[in-house]
């Protein structure tokens, strides 16, 4: 857990005092990722860097796991906080192994232990230890270097990590890959993480909570879904962008939305059965055909069922698209738009049909949050 208590930084500049962070009070619960988000110069980086005293606070306190860090030795404090920066900052004079083990060495671990730790970390970040440990940073790609940067920060297994736009300098494709890898690691590691970003999409993807900063003040601190559904003021709203409702699509999984109620036909049933089942379920266009393991194999269009006689196995169309339970709604919506469909069948990990998701359900889900809030707002007034 990281708790900031009235953390303030005032810089003396030739043009007078500038308050970079103004009485910031917030708490990041253990095991969560908190994204500090805002335009440049908003104080997010200053706030982050006050936690490990790269920037010394003017006033206020930082608590880590309930302990006031004010009186801790600076070096000691930093060695127990993982730190990742955008420029990566791998030491070019050291091998990858030396870079990763630099903190364990500072902490006085014995050789066998830190060597093993280096290999363990390399496996964690999906880089082959034997191929990479003896190489130098300049021999690695940007994405690989940043993975090493993350490994270095994790080396001494600190409970808390600070990340300053860690993936900002990596090209978009690799960035997405590293973000996914990092989230997967975090599921096992459960670190408490403060993460500076200026990219709203990254914040929504990575953050358990998002703190929006503006001109040294903490404007809003919420879970991403709340933030997108209910921005506190015009600034936050404009920062989130006019498509903020669409951004919420990222946050909802098919699993949370799928309706389990779905009618199907088997290949050896005839088309008349298919037609009547469509009518029973009220499907206007078509019905799914599944095999004996309940995996979808095609659709029977209503037009075919009405005009043709025979068995379903001889008259089905191929399925244009399927949603997995772990897909987010953004992908689902995209598939629907691409294939001009108003619904998609949903399958589980083994490819078995387990429900459907409709455009109607999606828009209803997105809209419901707004309706609730509007009602609440009216009630408060």
């Amino acid at each position, binding site marked *: 857990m990281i708790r900031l208590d009235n953390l303030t930084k005032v810089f003396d500049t030739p043009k007078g005092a500038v308050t970079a962070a103004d009485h910031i009070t917030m708490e990041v619960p253990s095991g969560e990722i908190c994204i500090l988000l805002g335009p440049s110069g908003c104080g997010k980086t200053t706030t982050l860097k006050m936690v490990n005293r790269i920037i010394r606070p003017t006033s206020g306190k930082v608590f880590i796991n309930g302990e006031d860090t004010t009186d801790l030795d600076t*070096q000691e404090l930093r060695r127990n906080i993982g730190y990742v920066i955008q420029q990566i900052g791998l030491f070019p004079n050291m091998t990858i192994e030396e870079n990763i083990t630099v903190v364990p060495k500072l902490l006085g671990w014995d050789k066998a232990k830190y060597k093993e730790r280096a290999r363990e970390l390399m496996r964690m970040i999906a880089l082959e230890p034997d191929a990479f440990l003896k190489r130098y940073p300049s021999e690695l790609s940007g994405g690989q270097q940043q993975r090493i940067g993350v490994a270095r920060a994790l080396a001494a297994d600190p409970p808390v990590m600070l990340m300053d736009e860690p993936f900002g300098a990596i090209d978009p494709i690799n960035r997405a890959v590293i973000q996914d890898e990092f989230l997967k690691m975090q599921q096992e590691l459960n670190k408490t993480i403060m993460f500076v970003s200026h990219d709203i999409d990254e914040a929504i993807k990575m953050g358990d909570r998002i703190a929006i900063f503006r001109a040294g003040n903490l404007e809003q601190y919420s879970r991403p879904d709340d933030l997108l559904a209910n921005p506190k003021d015009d600034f936050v709203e404009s920062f989130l962008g006019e498509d903020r409702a669409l951004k919420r699509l990222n946050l909802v999984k098919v699993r949370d939305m799928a309706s389990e109620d779905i009618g199907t036909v088997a290949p050896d049933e005839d088309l008349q059965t298919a037609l009547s089942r469509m009518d029973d379920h009220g499907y206007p266009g078509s019905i799914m055909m599944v095999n004996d393991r309940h995996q979808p194999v095609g659709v029977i269009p209503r037009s075919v069922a009405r005009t043709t006689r025979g068995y379903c196995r001889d008259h089905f169309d191929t399925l244009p698209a399927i949603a997995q339970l772990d897909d987010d709604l953004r992908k689902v919506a995209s598939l629907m738009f691409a294939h001009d469909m108003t619904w998609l069948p949903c399958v589980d990990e083994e490819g078995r049909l387990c429900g459907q998701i409709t455009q109607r359900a999606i828009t209803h889900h997105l809209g419901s949050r707004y309706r609730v809030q509007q009602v609440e707002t009216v009630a408060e007034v």
Partner: protein
Amino acid sequence: MDWIHYMVDNLDLLTSRTIEHIALVGVAVGIATLTGVPIGIAITKNERLAKAVLYVASIIVTVPSIALFGIMIPVLSLIGQGIGYLPAVIAVLLYSQLPIIRNTYTAIHNVDPALREAARGIGMSQNQRLQKVEIPLAVPVIMAGVRTAVVLNIGVMAIAAYIGAGGLGTFISRGISQSDPRQLILGAVAVSLLAIIVDYSLLALQKRLTPKGMERAAFAE
């Protein structure tokens, strides 16, 4: 090609003067490194001081060596050391300061701020940063400064033969005063070769001292 015969006949003399030359420059630049590197590191803490120190050092280098000797001899003769090794060694010491201090300062000063922040962020103390990151990164550049100083001062030491410091310049001074082209050419060729060979050897050393991962960065220019 008389000078080659002369060289063969006087190989012992050539050897001893070469050794003398190398020893004088080596000792003086060695001492200069011991003073210049700490000064270069120290002044990274204070930009004003850095500018002042570099300014003074650059003025010193501007003064021609023979003029420096001409000024030093009267002063040093007050303590009876006017002619000989001492003014030569002092001159080399002084001339070495600029390249060594400047390169040390520039190298440490130019260490990527991101590296410095990373080092701070993982909890290195100021001394640990200096030892583990900043100095290793600066070594090739400092070596380049030492190399510049050595090559420059091989030339200065040659001139110092005129104030009785010995070394290879003695061949040249005798060659001129005795109108003996053999000594003249031998001296000129020997001192030139010495400078070139030392330059290349120190370059090789500089490359070896460069941390492995940095060769590309250090020799890109």
